[in-house]
């Protein structure tokens, strides 16, 4: 299954999930958009919190994208994902961002759960940021709907993660093939 198919499937799921809650969710959406910077920051910090302290300090420096590629990839990535989930942008636009982060996590983590957990941290970031509102109970339903969206994205993450892992195994397998291509070609030629 190609990348496009993955996106389409997920888009369908996402649209279905949105359906009836759309109008009522406006209140929550506005709230979240108003707190976008704070939520993103919280989320970013949570993700960096999954790295050792000695490292996360380096990552936290908003450095030049080339001197600090992990930090750059994550911060750009979560921004893009945020827009999709909250602002209701087409999921296709989030795909490259998701892809970037998952690619990174897929070779950084040795467990699948660890690799895709970052997306679920968004739920936590939103809950913490909107703690008061949630306690008031007014946005409870909308929140559930939103979290379902995040669940959908999580499924997409899992697909992407598997694709990355398959890629890594493919690369491993190709390593020998590439090295000896000319030899095989020659051997065949000689037959």
């Amino acid at each position: 299954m190609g990348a496009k198919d993955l996106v389409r499937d997920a888009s369908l799921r996402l649209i279905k999930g949105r359906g009836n809650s759309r109008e009522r969710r406006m209140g929550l959406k506005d709230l979240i958009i108003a707190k976008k910077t704070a939520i993103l920051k919280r989320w970013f910090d949570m993700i960096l919190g999954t790295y050792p302290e000695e490292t996360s300090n380096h990552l936290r420096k908003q450095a030049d994208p080339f001197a600090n590629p992990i930090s750059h990839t994550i911060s750009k990535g979560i921004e893009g994902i945020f827009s999709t989930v909250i602002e209701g942008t087409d999921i296709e636009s989030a795909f490259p961002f998701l892809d970037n982060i998952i690619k990174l996590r897929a070779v950084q983590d040795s467990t699948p759960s660890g690799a895709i957990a970052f997306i679920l941290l968004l739920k936590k970031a939103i809950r913490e940021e909107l703690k008061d509102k949630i306690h008031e109970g007014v946005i409870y339903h909308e929140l559930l709907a939103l979290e379902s969206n995040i669940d959908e994205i999580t499924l997409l993450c899992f697909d992407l993660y598997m694709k990355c892992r398959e890629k890594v195994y493919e690369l491993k397998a190709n390593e020998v093939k590439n090295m000896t291509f000319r030899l095989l070609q020659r051997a065949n030629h000689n037959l």
Partner: protein
Amino acid sequence: MAKLPTPDELSKINYKPPEKRWVNTPAEFKDGFWCFGTRPKYLQAVDMPNPREWKPIEDDWKLPENWKEIFLEGFAERLKKYRSFRLFMDICVRCGACADKCHFFLGTGDPKNMPVLRAELLRSVYRNYFTTSGKLLGKLAGAREITFDVLRELWYYAFQCTECRRCSVFCPYGIDTAEITIICRELLNLLGLNTDWTMGPVANCYRTGNHLGLEPHTIKSIIESMVEDIETITGIKIEPTFNRKGAEILFITPSGDLFGDPGTYTCMGYMMLFHELGLNYTWSTLAAEGGNFGLFTSNEMAKKLAYKIYAEAKRLKVKWILGGECGHMWRVWNQYLETWHGPTDFLETPVSPITGTKFDYTSSLKAVHIAEFTADLIKHGKLNLNPSRNDYLKVTFHDSCNTARGMGIFEEPRHIIRNVCNHFYEMPENTIREQTFCCGSGSGLNAGENMELRMRGGFPRANAVKHVHKHYGINMLANICAIDRAALKPLMDYWVPGVEVCGVHELVGNALVMKGEKERTTTLRSEPLPEKEAKENV
């Protein structure tokens, strides 16, 4: 309801921040981060110590009884032999300038991949046995004993360094982690602790002269297969010679150019160029390998494997040596070869037979880099080039660590690329030239089993390529290193699909208009030239 781990707990599983100081945190061997241990047959083939079956992941490495003694004696010997080693053990002030300069640290986030800490792993042992303060104050002076855990850690991290020297550029004292890693690996080799991927090529190279163990007739046959391809593409039959005495020039290139794509296309480029010039050169089937995995094993092994270079030049009575595109081959040639096997009084200062340029900056080594050779040809207008044949490419250039920081060859390949391509764009300034990021697979780390490590280590490089891919539509990553050609390919495949990898002389081969050639319809890769191009040529 059963208590499930929360997302942040889950993701923390692998990134548990070390609560203790690093000295007390043993290395955790992660899947995909280490290479297989060397098989005994390779060690036996070159008479190296402690051949046996062993697995790095297991607790018993089957070390000799007195391994500590061997390790420490080796340590002491090298402190006496290398000022660099002694000095670099002593003068680091741990300022941290190098910390975020290492591609492995940037890509893995493992604090022990900071160059300073990688060196401290060994320094702590040094302090314990070789300094007064360490002997007196022990842990307080940052000293620790060599234990099996420490040895495992040294091994794990010595093979997570590609000896690229980027940290050395930023260190106020020029402390070169490559030098430390090289010596650390030498010490590990005293105990038979090499990787299979490094030791295999070493053993093969000793017997046959090349990494894959190609025998002389196979080398000839492989090159002939390229000759056939060239004929198909250009209609011109090239006739390379092998082990021919009295040729003017001995041409040596890494054997990766012979058997692995896309290196083979680079090799076709060399041969087309030489044919077009009517160059009087020969291949040597023994010195058909410029690469030297001995450098990643021990100084002595590197020296043994490099012996054939001058020996073959002498036997074949050539005047000088022309070297192909390779990174660590040129580091070895530039900084070690003549010291080991000189003087070279049987050779002459290289002179280009085409332009008459005397390469007097290599009057002692008597070897010219092919990028210098070709740049000189182009400067003198000796080549008929049609760069528009490369118009389907948008090219960027990756400086290889060894030629960048162990030699300083920056302008020559760029001069060539600008003349054979119409679309050339540089990557960001802090990722090229002396600040270039490693491919992540150098120094014998380009195995298959450590692919995750390679992908992470190569991430900073890929990230910069991605930038130019996005902004300029770069689809070709040119370089002058055989390991790059092999390693950047999967790296691009993973991080920046759509970007291919090539040697500079593949681009030359594509652009070179040869006398009497037929109308080209394909590239050197035997892929059809884009339509627009075909029309123009009608």
